[in-house]
């Protein structure tokens, strides 16, 4: 990789030992991935969570060292040109009546939030930064963690980010450069797989099903969708999240919607797809729902909405459906949101309606990270359903928001068109 004199000086320690190490990681990473240079970074979305339940029972020194490494990143300043926000934590900073939200870990997370804030990171604590102000423009060079947000940034906004992990996003935000490879380059943004959709996608969970189906086939490739209407923001969010759950997709093209894919030819960059094309019809839709559901009964104890974090519109829709209703007493209904969205929901009265019905808005985190104590979960997110199965050990039912809320009120799964 060719570095500028300024970049080389950082690599040689001109800005201290820690930034030297950050630059070393970025250069090694770039060289491994075929980058030829480093380019200035406009935007970062970084991961700074205390490990909490993820490291329950681990050696205390391992956890302490990890947290100390996060502190070290926060002792340096975000590059002046870079807009940097923070991804979901593994705890909520609010009161929560489950032992999994360990108060000592909450204290550490607050400390990290303060350090991060002083360093120039905005502690949004969300997996959907584009819902709370971090909306990069077309062509902006980003270093984003959160696999679903990466797909959203590339595919819906036309911004450019490869799939980042914590060290690369933090390092890039501090040094102000990122190695140029993958979807940062035009030639790696071309479609590799054509997915022709022949069935109507009725709501956001159906879009999640499409993503879950296509991600598995695409792997690390770039699916191109035809035959679909323009999704709204919440539907696009579900599509992107599911693509990066069953697969390792960095971007997709929705022909006519993705900024750089006005036509099918443009989506493939004039080249033939690498993989044979696939059809997503009513049968594939049904099978995708069924394949993820593993419930052995109808009694439920948890309903999880807002994966990825709910938009204010979704919160409003959920509040409208719960107005004057009562969630079954044995059911925990959580709507996961960014703190900024909750502030808005508080102001609008949505929070009060949801709380009066027996639900709550969960800020900063997500139930799989907290390891929600659950036996049977209903959720509208394919990503949540996929990971909750292994992480919480619960049985899952993935369903439309309407059917999730119906189940919450009834206290049991009431069935839908995808049941056997």
């Amino acid at each position, binding site marked *: 990789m060719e570095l500028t004199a300024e970049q080389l000086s950082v690599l040689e320690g001109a800005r201290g030992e820690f930034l030297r190490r950050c630059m070393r*990681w970025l250069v*090694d*990473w770039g060289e*491994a*991935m075929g980058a030829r240079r480093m380019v200035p970074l406009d935007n970062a979305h970084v*991961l700074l*969570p205390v*490990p909490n339940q*993820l*490291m*329950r*029972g*681990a*050696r205390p*020194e*391992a*956890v302490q*060292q*990890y947290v100390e*490494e996060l502190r070290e990143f926060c002792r340096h300043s975000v590059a002046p040109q870079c807009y940097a926000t923070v991804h979901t934590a593994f705890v909520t900073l609010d009161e929560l009546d489950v032992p999994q939200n360990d108060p000592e870990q909450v204290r550490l997370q607050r400390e990290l939030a303060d350090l991060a804030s002083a360093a120039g990171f905005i502690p949004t604590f969300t997996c959907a930064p584009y819902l709370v102000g971090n909306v990069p423009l077309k062509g902006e060079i980003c270093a*984003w*963690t*959160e*696999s679903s947000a*990466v797909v959203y940034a590339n595919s819906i906004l036309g911004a450019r980010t*490869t*799939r*980042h*992990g*914590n*060290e*690369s996003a933090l390092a890039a935000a501090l040094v102000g450069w990122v190695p140029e*490879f*993958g979807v940062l380059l035009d030639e790696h943004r071309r479609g590799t797989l054509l997915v022709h959709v022949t069935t109507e996608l009725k709501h956001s969970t159906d879009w999640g099903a499409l993503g879950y189906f296509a*991600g598995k086939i695409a*792997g*690390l490739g770039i699916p191109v969708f035809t035959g679909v209407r323009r999704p709204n923001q919440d539907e696009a969010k579900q599509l992107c999240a599911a693509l*990066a*759950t*069953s*697969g*390792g997709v960095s971007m997709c093209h929705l022909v006519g919607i993705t900024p750089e894919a006005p036509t099918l030819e443009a989506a493939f960059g004039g080249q033939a797809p690498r993989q044979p094309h696939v059809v997503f019809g009513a049968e594939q839709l049904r099978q995708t729902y069924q394949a993820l559901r*593993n419930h052995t009964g109808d009694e439920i104890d948890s309903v999880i909405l807002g994966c990825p974090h709910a938009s204010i519109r979704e919160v409003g829709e959920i509040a409208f459906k719960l107005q004057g209703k009562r969630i079954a007493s044995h059911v925990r209904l959580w709507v996961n949101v960014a703190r900024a969205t909750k502030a808005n929901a508080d102001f609008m009265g949505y929070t009060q309606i949801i709380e009066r019905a027996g639900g709550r808005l969960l800020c900063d985190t997500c139930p*799989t990270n907290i390891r929600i104590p659950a036996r049977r979960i209903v959720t509208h997110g394919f990503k949540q359903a*996929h*990971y909750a*199965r*292994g*992480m919480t050990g619960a049985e899952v039912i993935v369903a439309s928001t309407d059917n999730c809320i119906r189940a919450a009120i009834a206290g049991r799964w009431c069935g839908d068109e995808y049941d056997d």
Partner: protein
Amino acid sequence: MMTEFPGTSIVRGRVEGEALVADATLSFWGEVEPVSGRVIAVGHPLEGQSIAGRILIIRSTKGSSATPMVLRLCSLQGTAPLALVNQEIDSLAALGCIVNRIPLMVVKDPAIFHTIRSGDWVVVDSDQAKVTLKRTGAR
């Protein structure tokens, strides 16, 4: 018996150990428990098995961007794989292996998934860019 697979070195180093093999993808966050190194993804071919100290041969990583974070936690806990061999390279696997100094190679030949089986003894020589099956384990 010696079977050799040439490949591309992504992170250098030479290690040998027991293979853990699946013609499948894996997200470390959400599908691997860092405290034990156990794969927790329901229905995954490696479900219930531990990646700790193994030479993990899979198609690629996928899914969560917290994959490097979990590799870091595994590394600090002592449950990281000894080496990673992928058919295709996800930027997250590359990052996690660079930060944690875990040898990483790309071997494109899909025959590796049926020639090398879990339990076989394997040498990953990422300095010479080859993976060698040294002896087969109990099958």
